[in-house]
């Protein structure tokens, strides 16, 4: 163990301990965290938002703007992954995971040649076509790990049910724990499982190439739309009409679905990008 990281950690730990040690006790009902803003949410949240799950109420209504920015953050992650240079040839290696003791590329060796297995960079205007072409050319089993038929069968069998579970979670998010994000993660998990079990090309067809540019941005767009509707209806950005529970539910529902679809597509695409 090198000494200086420990020293640094200690240096950070001391003020942190000092900081948390002097906080008010965390489970006392009269702590500021329970008596200030939180108290009002507990008191009037259901009446004001029409959502029984107050976490959802906070996420979509009181602090809906945070959630807007949050879906923007995952969209940023996707844009980041898409914007990174691609096509650099991977270092020659055996089947993953790499066996013990595999040496790195020796120092001073020439940098890995560009291009690699991918098609040459397409000309302007044909990028979409090229992307679709690549999708179709993708081999059936992209993963290096051989997948047993049993696993494939189980995944195929379970996938619809898991997806149904996600949908249920999505629709009942305002009453029970769970909601758009959780559904998105589960959707993505289903997708990834399918991708690993059946090969990416099959999985990739679940999200059509033509729809991707729209689907991946659907969450921020839905937020902007709802914000605009709220603005027109109530005069406040992202405002919910306080007396109309149907409108509240409809707006919340749109957002939840958009988060689930958009988030799911984004996570799935990140997976696809990293696999290629």
């Amino acid at each position, binding site marked *: 163990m090198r000494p200086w990281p420990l020293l640094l950690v200690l240096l950070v730990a001391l003020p942190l301990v000092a900081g948390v040690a002097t906080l008010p006790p965390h489970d006392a009902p009269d702590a500021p965290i329970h008596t200030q803003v939180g108290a009002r949410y507990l008191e009037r949240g259901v009446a004001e938002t029409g959502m029984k799950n107050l*976490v959802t109420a906070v996420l979509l209504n009181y602090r809906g703007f945070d959630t807007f920015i949050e879906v923007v953050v995952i969209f940023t992650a996707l844009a980041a992954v898409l914007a990174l240079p691609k096509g650099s040839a991977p270092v020659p290696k055996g089947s993953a*995971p*790499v066996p013990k003791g595999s040496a790195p590329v020796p120092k001073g060796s020439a940098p890995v040649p560009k291009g690699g297995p991918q098609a040459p960079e397409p000309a302007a205007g044909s990028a979409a076509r090229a992307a679709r072409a690549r999708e179709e050319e993708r081999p059936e089993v992209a993963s290096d790990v051989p997948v047993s038929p049993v696993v494939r069968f189980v995944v195929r069998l379970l996938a619809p049910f898991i997806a149904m579970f996600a949908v249920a*979670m999505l629709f009942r998010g305002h009453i029970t724990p769970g909601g758009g*994000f959780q559904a998105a*993660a589960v959707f993505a998990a289903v997708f990834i499982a399918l991708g690993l079990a059946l090969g990416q090309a099959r999985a990739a067809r679940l999200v059509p190439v033509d729809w991707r540019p729209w689907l991946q941005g659907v969450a921020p767009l839905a937020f902007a739309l709802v914000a605009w509707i709220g603005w027109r209806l109530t005069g406040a950005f992202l405002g919910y009409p306080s007396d109309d529970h149907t409108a509240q539910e409809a707006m919340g529902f749109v957002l939840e679905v958009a988060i689930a679809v958009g988030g799911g597509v984004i996570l799935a695409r990140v997976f696809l990008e990293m696999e290629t």
Partner: protein
Amino acid sequence: MSDLFDIVMLALLIATAITVARARDLLAAVVIFSMYSLTMTLVWQHRGAPDVAMTEAAVGAGVTTVLFLITIARTTRREKP
């Protein structure tokens, strides 16, 4: 009872975190990390945060772990001493 659960869980958390730090096999580290996340899920569930717990289970233990696994598959599994 509640206190005991807490203490066990916190100890487990710290133990798993340290194991993640010490594991030389990255695959093992990631799997243990997902265990750490699931333990955290239990703690949060216990502390009255089922929403957070579900998210952590789906995102922290699920998606993050899968992304790590893919990365390990594409890079290397061993941490150099």
